[in-house]
């Protein structure tokens, strides 16, 4: 387990780790303030925001594993252990997600229920639903990492990974938000809120996709002219 985390930490960019965690804290505070402003306990939103932010973090993590041509660094390939160490890094990523999920979706609501704010019901759709959503999220993450490993082996490009990631993760992330949204908006505005979220996410996905295509294409063009 320690080896997985060590590998994961070694391959991910420290700057982005710090940045994303700061962003997460910022989002959490923002949501808390918003919640207080509209007189609704917002704590259930925090896990959802955190999860979504971690998705963006994954974007940078896996981006960091690949070189600018969208391929895995030759350095990894020059060692037989390279592939297994990469796999360990991905396992470390899954492991850390699982730990986060456990605390954010199980420990945190239970703490709210019994310790922090006893009068608030943090599980409007029941703990079973939250566990189900957490499982779906973890399963999707595991599939993605599987796709990523296969992608690395067969040499798929970075933009393909981003596309797959967003196509699969958008519905999962929205699904993850449903219990909290239902709670916060009491079901009244769930459809317009989800619609706005889908549009925002789709726009973000398209923008990131095209940006990565442009960057990768330029790098490829450069590579084709100077090496064979």
């Amino acid at each position, binding site marked *: 387990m320690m080896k997985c985390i060590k590998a994961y930490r*070694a391959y991910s960019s420290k700057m982005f780790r710090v940045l994303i965690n700061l962003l997460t804290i910022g989002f959490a505070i923002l949501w808390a303030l918003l919640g207080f402003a509209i007189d609704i306990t917002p704590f259930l939103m925090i896990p959802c925001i955190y999860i979504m932010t971690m998705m963006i973090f994954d974007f940078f993590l896996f981006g*960091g594993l690949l070189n600018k041509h969208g391929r895995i660094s030759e350095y990894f390939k*020059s060692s037989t252990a390279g592939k297994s160490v990469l796999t360990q890094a991905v396992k470390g990523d899954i492991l850390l997600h699982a730990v986060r999920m456990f605390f954010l979706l199980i420990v945190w609501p239970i703490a709210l229920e019994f310790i922090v704010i006893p009068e608030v019901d943090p599980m409007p759709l029941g703990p079973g639903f939250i566990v189900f959503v957490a499982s779906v999220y973890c399963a999707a993450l595991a599939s993605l990492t599987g796709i990523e490993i296969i992608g690395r082996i067969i040499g798929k490009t970075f933009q393909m990974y981003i596309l797959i990631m967003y196509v699969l993760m958008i519905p999962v992330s929205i699904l993850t938000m449903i219990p909290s949204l239902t709670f916060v908006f009491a079901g009244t505005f769930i459809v317009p809120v989800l619609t706005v979220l889908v549009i925002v996410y789709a726009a973000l996905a398209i923008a990131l996709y095209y940006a990565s295509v442009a960057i990768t294409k330029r790098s490829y063009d450069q590579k084709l002219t*100077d090496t064979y």
Partner: protein
Amino acid sequence: MNAEAMISGKNIIKKYTNFTLDVGEIVIPKGFATALIGENGAGKTTLLNILAGIRLDYTGEITYFGEYNDKDRENKPEVKERMGYTGTENYFLPHWTVEQIDQLSHMLFKNYDHDKFMKIYDELAISSSGRYDGNKKVSELSDGTKTKLALAQVLARDTDILIMDEPASPLDPLMRDKLCEMIGQYINSKEGRTVFFSTHNISDMENVTDYAIIVEHGKIVESGFVDDLKEKYILVKGEPADAEKAKEILYSQTTGKYGFEGICLASDLDKLAGMDITTEQASLFQISVAIMKKNSHIKQVSI
């Protein structure tokens, strides 16, 4: 001269849209420094990457150390453990620090020696301040320093063969000289140690090159020990009056006011009988350029 093969390959083919690498047979002799020479786009990097196991999308047979095939290379860690590789750009990811590279090498390679890395880091003056700077990012290093770092990393491992893609290109003349010295030291430090590198800096690397392989348009057009090549090819100098006649025999020819010079096969010398010529031993650079010129698509430029 015949030598045992460190790496040998047969019928290696890798197809791109507008280019095909097609190597019928290749031998990297054990215990020698082999240079892979060719013009841009000739297939040098592809060939090196295939032999080093960086590229897997090819067909053909490759034998390592006389006993392992390319499947073993991927499945038996002892094969790649014995092989050191340095690539060109993006070998290390730009956000990695020197310390991370040291740590990662520990994780990736069993035979990696941290103390040796530190020693070579110091000897190659990788840090401009003269002190070890583990927090320095790869993206902050110059191209030459990146190459020095890759050399320090690979030489800190106990390997039997070094495969290096263009190690000399980003280096200054002093460091190129040092590179030649290091290649010589590596080969002499243990019996059978072999170096295989691609280069455009033939003159700078000539004094360390034992064996040369010349590739053009994805095919090996010449290979052999440098001493044998220098017997096979000869530098011919002659009078301007004979330039046209000699052109048919010579691989390449440069003509000036005072005469011509060019490379020809030693076996073709008798075809130049009757001309007022002198012969000299050609350098590897002259031989390589002549062979490349003969096969190149580059045309005469009119200025």
